[in-house]
């Protein structure tokens, strides 16, 4: 178990963004945030928190409420969520933290923090319609199992990705 030292920095009110919370809550899925009374049931049931105490749903919810915009969006751990849905499944206040986290990740992506694997997957979908290439080797392998040729409509998928502006998201530069 790693030590959690992330609370050692004092919070400076002058650096908070008072609009951050309302910006997050503008999204339909994140509207329950105000109901959170910080009981920590989400954190207690989070499998990622077990190994990375720095990833803490309760603390993230509080940070959003306080307006710690830069701190929240730049935390690499927000991308470590395994999407098990325990946080929302167990929340006594019916706060959809999983959805709040998605809103935060979407905002972080727009601000240049998108991890390259997700950006690369999007590029792959625009080429083949799925997150993997479809090469000769795969075609032969499928044929050997007497399975049909794998097709997908990547043109339509590409168009939708462009309409949603997802093609504009660039991966975070490696430091």
């Amino acid at each position, binding site marked *: 178990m790693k030590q959690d030292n992330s609370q050692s920095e004092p919070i400076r009110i002058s650096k908070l963004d008072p609009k951050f919370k309302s910006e997050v809550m503008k999204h339909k899925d994140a509207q329950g945030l105000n109901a959170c009374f910080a009981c920590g049931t989400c954190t207690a049931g989070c499998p990622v928190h077990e*190994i990375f105490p720095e990833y803490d749903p309760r603390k993230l919810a509080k940070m959003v409420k306080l307006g710690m915009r830069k701190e929240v969006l730049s935390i690499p751990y927000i991308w*470590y969520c*395994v999407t098990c849905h325990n946080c929302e499944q167990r929340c006594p206040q019916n706060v959809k933290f999983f959805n709040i986290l998605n809103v935060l990740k979407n905002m972080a992506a727009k601000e240049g923090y998108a991890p390259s694997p997700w950006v690369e*997957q999007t590029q792959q979908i625009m080429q083949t319609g*799925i997150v993997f290439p479809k090469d000769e080797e795969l075609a032969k392998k499928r044929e050997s199992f007497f399975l049909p040729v794998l097709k*997908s409509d*990547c043109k339509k*998928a590409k168009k*939708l990705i462009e*309409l949603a502006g997802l093609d504009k998201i660039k991966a975070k530069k490696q430091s």
Partner: protein
Amino acid sequence: MNRYALFLGCTTPTQVIQYELSSRWVCKHLGIELVDIDDFVCCGINQINLSQEAGLMLAAMNLAHAEAKELDILTLCAACTGALAEAVESLKDQETRDRVNRKLQTIGLKYNGRTKVKHISRVLYEDVGIDRIKIKIKRDLSKFRVAPHYGCHYLKPESAFEGFDDPDNPKTLHQLISATGAFPVQYETLNLCCGGKSFPISKEPAFYLVQKKLDNIMGKKIDCMVVQCQTCYLMYSDQQKVINGRFKKQYNVPVLLYPQLLGIALGGDPINDLGLNSNTVSLNSLLAKGEINKQL
């Protein structure tokens, strides 16, 4: 005759072909007709990380294609199930559906909210039924002690699954395993996630979570683990080998996809029908225990 549009997803038809093979065989054997739809694309689940809107649109595109053919969707991957079922739920909202349809219109599609999404195990459970499965069993698997693993998106978010099973205390896979004659073993970390969804970002959560579950089930004298999602399969089977090398462990837990276990019980050919020879952890000792005379 039950007919479904087969939604293969990305990983199964490219990396875990034995899941597709055994699913097709089992469905054919039990009278479920699967229709291949050439226009299906990725369900959009990982794109939700970067743009929820893009993820929803990709899901809606798939739902619209199935609807145009008047078919419901049968999924193999738990994550596709969750993503598509959640999209069905979101698109019940008229405003959301209108917004998405304005975009779908540009590619000549429309979704009217009629498509249902069911995971293959749910189809087997609800459409075929435990009793009808039991009648068809040809091989005796009563010696197998099996650890079930459900996969998070098979039942969550709960709002998308009509109370089909309880995500905190699930029973359907246990019953499907019992139907084959094998014994489903209960264990403490039953609902623990495989970690697969953030594996491309960081391997550490999965390495930790996989070991935690394997440590738990190794103490239960089990013969194999049964999963119902190819990502869970890759984590527990392929990554089991990686973990053995990297962390100097000696895990030796055979992992089967549920249609493979059911296929064995139904009398399928272990290699040609079920692709058991493609599984990373050898299943030879398992087959020997079941007195199935086949070397993989």
